[in-house]
């Protein structure tokens, strides 16, 4: 799906990309951040 990000948001996301622990591309990192957010916010995966 298409998601719009500002250039400023990508500056911060690129810092996480540079860390290397959550993925090597912006797309991988954003997906990983989203999944961790869901885990932190909603808890475990709903069946």
């Amino acid at each position, binding site marked *: 799906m298409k998601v719009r990000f500002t*250039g400023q948001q990508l500056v911060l996301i690129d810092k*996480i990309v540079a860390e290397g622990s959550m993925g090597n591309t912006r797309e991988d990192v954003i*997906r990983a951040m*989203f999944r961790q957010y869901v885990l932190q*916010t909603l808890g475990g*995966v709903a069946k």
Partner: protein
Amino acid sequence: MIPIQLGAVRYEEILQPVTGRAVPVMQGEVLKIELVEGPQCVDFNCFNLHDYKDRLSVGHMRRYGGFRVHPGSVLWSAPPRFNPLMVLLDKPDTCVTDILGARCNAVTFERERGYPGLHTNCQDCQAEAIREYGLAPDDVHDSLNFWMNTGWDDAGTFIPNVKRNRGRKGDTVTLIATNDVLAVPNVCGSGDVSNTSNYFFRPIKVQILERSPDTIGLAQLLRKQYMGFKNQRTVADFRNPKIRTERALTRDPSYKPEFVNYPLQINDLEIELDDADLRQVRRLIARGLAEDAEDAVRSGAMTWYTRNRTVQNQPEALDFDIADIREASSTPGDQ
């Protein structure tokens, strides 16, 4: 208080009700304000001695430290400068501080209490004190209030929730200058009609202590901690560095806006989500945490950043080791 050796008193004055005084305090010097008889609210303004437009912002103190001030609290100047002007070193628990009440003014007493004439007030007292340095009534800013036991209710209502002043004779607040400043304490003018000073006025003592090796070192460490950010601007950074002298506002016909990072750069990214992700997106929307799928992914990712990669507000503190202070005092600094 942090165990440092303070310098000798170089200036001392008793401020009578309902007066104030503007006193220069240089980097590394210490300012003490003492209740000499008993409970008394003290309003406090502060300006960079070398640029009066760089002045204390209690709003930003609230932003970073909450509604009360405590040892270690930084007296920040307003953005875009955002300089640490002074740091509170010590105060007794009986000195409850206020950064909500702004400052009392003559209209307050006329409008709210029906006072028919000109009642003493901190706006006029501050204005008179800073006049000694060529400043005007409009230069007075919202006060950092010492010994002002304000309260507030769930709706944020301020008046009449000022509680009795808990100050005691001998109570002293101690501040260190981390920049050269013009410090302006005054004996609050509302004292006889409010709990702010328990319905009376009392004098205060103001002292300035010379720099000592320890205060030089501490000021250096505080400057190192709170300065050096590239977005702490100086006048040299301003697109318009002038101070207006004309009072009426007129449009600059040559004005061309140059807003920060405008127009915003917007990037489309293709984020692949699996079925489990899409179920979570629907849950987020159902709970009101997102408007649509795009919002769910973007807000989710950025909320994760906020939660996990953002320095959260921490109480400002004086957690320096005395050995570090003394080492800093022996190191050439930026005095």
